[in-house]
Each structure stands twice: as structure tokens, then as C-alpha cells.
């Protein structure tokens, strides 16, 4: 069943289109992430779902009912704010129980739910503290508890982890995801952190400038980016995008004589993820090593083919002096091809796995591109 359905929602702030004709569905019990760079309209979209903002056009259906103009409380949703929005003068207990008191839930029921939720998020010891006496992570848990205790089927979260340090954020990701599964909650989660989106989402809605750029599960966004923007936004380091030029035997990487595929090159862009590029002893494409960045588990190498820079991710520690000549290789199924003008993926509609490497013939494998 569909928990939330958004149909052609647009929101104007004066003349800026914060949200521009956005449509998507959120299946019941799923974890959907709204992902995108700052200012792309994620928060505005979420606030429209919550009823805190009215859309300029379009409809919002919650549980099959049109809720476009309904008051927030009628929608039976809870929300975790980035700033947590805890009431500073109330202790943890009263913060969690705020909504239940508003709705005059009976005392025994209140206590029962409080005990359960406090246990669930690990706040049982801290119920008498004021928010100011809690750490950032604990405050975050209170905000979470307040959302859970309402037992609303849908929970909206606006960058709930962005105020935590990296380690805690990692832990909370797992915990949040486990909690969502366990309680079978429908979650719409806003973040600008693609790693967070990849690790938590059932479904990612990638936004740019108020529009949906691509929608799909994390695999699809990673494996079949529909646009240059999607390709460069997802993955750390992001996908290498190499401008192509026409060459004598096919498309060459701009500024080099390396033929990388058949057909025309001008106006096309070749994409390959850093983890899909290998360094080989022989064959492959000649490149110049520029720098190495050791990250512990792996090393990210910056290199140059012609005048195009690219990153290469290799496991472990890789030592080399800048300026060294290296040879790079990759497999055809890892290549992505984009139209430079429209930014769209070339080889058929996204999602049709296996069709894209088909027209690609790798010069490197035939060791033809050795000379330049």
C-alpha cells in the first residue's frame, strides 16, 4: 500500500521555484530518502508533507486521502527536526509525553508507552533531565522518542543526524534503520549526505533545483546514474567524468590519443567510478600519476589521461612519486556514457542493466591505444 503520494507538487517563494512539479510515492513501511545538495527543496518538500507549508500547486495524499490542505495534526505523522525542537523548559519525560498530553491519552497508557519508548531509544536513565543537560546524541534520541511515542504510522526526518559527530552518526544510522524496520514505520528522511542515503534508504529520491533528478533504490542510483548530476553526486569520491573527442578510430579521451570506444566522441562524456579503475602492468591506457591520498583501507590516486583528471581507488596503501607513468584498465560493463549537452545517460533508459556497455569496445583490451 502507498503511505504517501505526492502529485505534481510545486512551491513558489515569490518567484523562486523551491519545489518544481515533484511527484513520487512512498510505499508503506519503507525508508525513503530525499537527497540533494543544499537549497534543492528537500526541506520544503518535507514541510509540505507535514502540512507546515502549503503547496502552490499539486496534491498530497496520505493513506489514500487528499491531505493537501489538512492541518498538520490531522495527518497522523510525526517529525524529527534538524534542531530537534525540544522544549527547553520541560524535562525529557515531558518532552516525550507532550503530544500524548495534548491528545489526552490516559495516564496508564502514557506511562506504558513512555517506558517502552525510553527503553527502545535508551533514555530510561535520563527522563528527569532538561534538554540543556543532555549531549547532542541524547537530545537526538529524545526527538526520536517523541516521534515514536506518538505511534503515528509515518515519520518525517529533516537531517536528524547532521549535528552529530561522524562516529555517532554512523552508529545512529544503523540504529535508526533497525528501529524503523522493527516498528514498521514509514520514514521520509531528508539528507544532503549521499553516504547516509545509500546506507539507509530503500528508495532514494535525488533532487536538484526543485526537481527530481532520479528516483530508485540505492543500487540503481549507484549503478545506473541517469544524469551527469546523479553520477557526480553519488559515491565518494564521485564518478570520474571524462570528456571525449573524435579520434581516428573512435572516441578518444580529450587531449590524448587514447581510443576508448567506437563511434563519435565529441559531445559525449565517459563515466567510470574510481573503484572500477585498475592499475595494470601492461596493456591498458597510459596515464600520469598526480597524487595519492591514503585513507587507511584504501588509497585514492589522482591521475591524468590527456587533459582529463580522474580518481582511482585501490585497496591498501599505494606508494608512488607524482609524475610516474602508470597504465589504467577497466571492464566495459563499468562504463557509463552521457550526452554532454543534455547531461542524460545515453545507452537507453536507466534501469535497463546490461544494455549500456554493449556499444562500448575497449581499446585498452586490444592494447591498441598504447601509443599516443
Amino acid at each position: 500500500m502507498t503511505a504517501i503520494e505526492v502529485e505534481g507538487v510545486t512551491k513558489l517563494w515569490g518567484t523562486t521555484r523551491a519545489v518544481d512539479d515533484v511527484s513520487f510515492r512512498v510505499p508503506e513501511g519503507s525508508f525513503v530518502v530525499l537527497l540533494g545538495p543544499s537549497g534543492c527543496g528537500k526541506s520544503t518538500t518535507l514541510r509540505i508533507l507535514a502540512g507546515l507549508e502549503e503547496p502552490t500547486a499539486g496534491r498530497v495524499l496520505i493513506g489514500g486521502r487528499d491531505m493537501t490542505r489538512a492541518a498538520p495534526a490531522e495527518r497522523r505523522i510525526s517529525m524529527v527536526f534538524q534542531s530537534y525542537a525540544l522544549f527547553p523548559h520541560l524535562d525529557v519525560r515531558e518532552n516525550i509525553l507532550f503530544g500524548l498530553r495534548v491528545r489526552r491519552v490516559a495516564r496508564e497508557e502514557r506511562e506504558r508507552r513512555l517506558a517502552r519508548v525510553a527503553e527502545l531509544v535508551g533514555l530510561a536513565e535520563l527522563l528527569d533531565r532538561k534538554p540543556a543537560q543532555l549531549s547532542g546524541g541524547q537530545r537526538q534520541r529524545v526527538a526520536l522518542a517523541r516521534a515514536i511515542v506518538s505511534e503515528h504510522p509515518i515519520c518525517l526526518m529533516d537531517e536528524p543526524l547532521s549535528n552529530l559527530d561522524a562516529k555517532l552518526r554512523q552508529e545512529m544510522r544503523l540504529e535508526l534503520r533497525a528501529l524503523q524496520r522493527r516498528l514498521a514505520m514509514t520514514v521520509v528522511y531528508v539528507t544532503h549526505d549521499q553516504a547516509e542515503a545509500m546506507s539507509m534508504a530503500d528508495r532514494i529520491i535525488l533532487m536538484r533545483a526543485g526537481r527530481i533528478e532520479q528516483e530508485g533504490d540505492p543500487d540503481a542510483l549507484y549503478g545506473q546514474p541517469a544524469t551527469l548530476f546523479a553520477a557526480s553526486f553519488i559515491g565518494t569520491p564521485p564518478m570520474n567524468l571524462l570528456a571525449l573527442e573524435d579520434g581516428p578510430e573512435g572516441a578518444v579521451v580529450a587531449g590524448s590519443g587514447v581510443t576508448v570506444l567506437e563511434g563519435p566522441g565529441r559531445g559525449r562524456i565517459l563515466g567510470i567510478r574510481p573503484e572500477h579503475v585498475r592499475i595494470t602492468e601492461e596493456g591498458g591506457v597510459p596515464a600520469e600519476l598526480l597524487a595519492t591520498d591514503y585513507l587507511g583501507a584504501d588509497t585514492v590516486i589522482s591521475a591524468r589521461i590527456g587533459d582529463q583528471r580522474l580518481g582511482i581507488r585501490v585497496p591498501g596503501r599505494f606508494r608512488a612519486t607524482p609524475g610516474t607513468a602508470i597504465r589504467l584498465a577497466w571492464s566495459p560493463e563499468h562504463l557509463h556514457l552521457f550526452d554532454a549537452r543534455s547531461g542524460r545517460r545515453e545507452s537507453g533508459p536507466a534501469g535497463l542493466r546490461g544494455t549500456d556497455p554493449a556499444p562500448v569496445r575497449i581499446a585498452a583490451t586490444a592494447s591498441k591505444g598504447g601509443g599516443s
Partner: protein
Amino acid sequence: MRASRHLHHVYGWLLLTPAAILLLSFTHYPTVATIWQSFFSTGTALRPSSFVGLDNYRFMLEDEIFWKVVGNNLLFAAGTIPASIALALLMAVWVNGRLPGRALVRMAYFTPTVLPMIAVANIWLFFYTPEIGLLDQILRAFDLPTRNWLGDPDTVLWCIVVLAVWKEAGFFMIFYLAALQALPPELEEAARLEGASRAYYFRRVVFPLLMPTTLFVLVNAVINSFKLVDQLFILTKGGPDNASSLLLYYIYEVAFSFFDDSYAATLTVVLLAALALISLGQFLFLDRRIHYR
């Protein structure tokens, strides 16, 4: 090492000196002198001032006008403090909302505060003047009996109260407005999502969070209710029959119309002591129930 530390102290004292001199000569010395003088009789050409112990205080307790004035002042305080605070809060909440032209409204509410009390009193004189005043003209238009608002002992104090509330509410509103604007908007959004009505949100969240402001405003309102007497000079001179006289105005009369310096000093000591006690009580009593951020 020691010498430089010594020098450090000297600098400190030198920096403090100007402020200390001002405080000592204009605040502490007069206070001590006033207390001192309240134990002496007022000197005349024939009888020089002499130590009389608590005689001035004894006299005060038997002074009917003193009790009348204290009573007036309590009524004045009871009339102005809650009304001006409530009105200030109401206006602040109203002006804080999404109101078209709210900058204008804010300024309009604040105007009485900017005006000097003497000017305010003059404006209100136009309202209260018998027969030709605005109030009476309105009453006459509806064929209602007119009255001498400021000349009637039954109404004069309340006329003064209304004026003071009008003057003070705008000032207090500014503090409430500042506090309201400092509240994060997400708090209201979170409450709305939980289904809290505006009234519930106000009662459970806004009002408690405004308590530090309320305490500040309350202390000011209490002090002002003993301090604001300028309007009496224009409107009533404390009359008729001391019906509108307040403690501070009585002290002024005793000192500068009756030239009884010692009795004026005695009354001043009592006023100061009362104010100090009230402020202390407010802070001690209310502080514990207030959430400070």
C-alpha cells in the same frame, strides 16, 4: 614580579575610580545621609536639628495622610501592574504574528514609551477635562451623564491608573516581543504537529519560556508603580483631598512644600526598604520556578 602585580592592582583601582566616585557621591552617600537624617528633627532658625531617635517613624505611623497615600499606592500598583503586563503580553503576541503593516503597529504601540510623562499627562488632560474633554464629549453624544473625572475622589485614582497602563504597556511589550522573537519557530511547528492548539502551546510552552522576561518586567512594573508620579504634577497635584496622591508625590510635598526634610527622609527610607524587600522577594521566590536558557 611582586611590583608588577602591585601595579596591576593600582591600574584596576584607577579604572574603577571614576565610576566609584559617581556611585558614592550620587547613590551611596545620599542613601546613607537620608537614613541618618531620618533620626533627626528638622532644624529651624530657632530650633536646630537634634537627634530624636525613632520619633519621626512614630509620627509617620500616626500620620493619616501617610496611610491614605500608602493605600492609594497599593491600589495604584494593583491597578497598573497586572493590567500593563497582561496588555504588554497581549500586544506582543499580536504584533509578533504575521500581520500586514506590523512595523507600523509596533511603532504605534511603542510611542507612549517614547513620550515624556509630562507630555503624556497633557494629552490625557484633554481626555479627562470636564465638559470639553474627549471622554465627556463622547458621553454626551450618547446622552449619558458627564462627570468631573479628575475632580471626583472616586474616579481620580483610576484615571491615573489608566494613564500609567497606557504609558507602560508599550515599553513592556518591547521586552516580550524580543523574547518571543528569540523562540525558535520549530517549537511551534513541533507543537502543531502534535495537535496542540494555539492556546495550549501558549500555556505550556510560550508562557513558561517567557517567565524570565515576565520577572524582569514585573520588577520594573513594581518599581515604576512607586516611581511614576510625574503625571500628578500636571493632572491632579495629588488631589482632591489626597485621593490621587502617591507615596513619592507625598514625599515631594513634605520635602519641598512643607520643608520638613527629616520627615521626608523618613518616608524615603520606608519607600526604599519596601522596594528592596519586594524586589528581593520576587527574585528569591520566582527564580526557582523559572527556566533560564
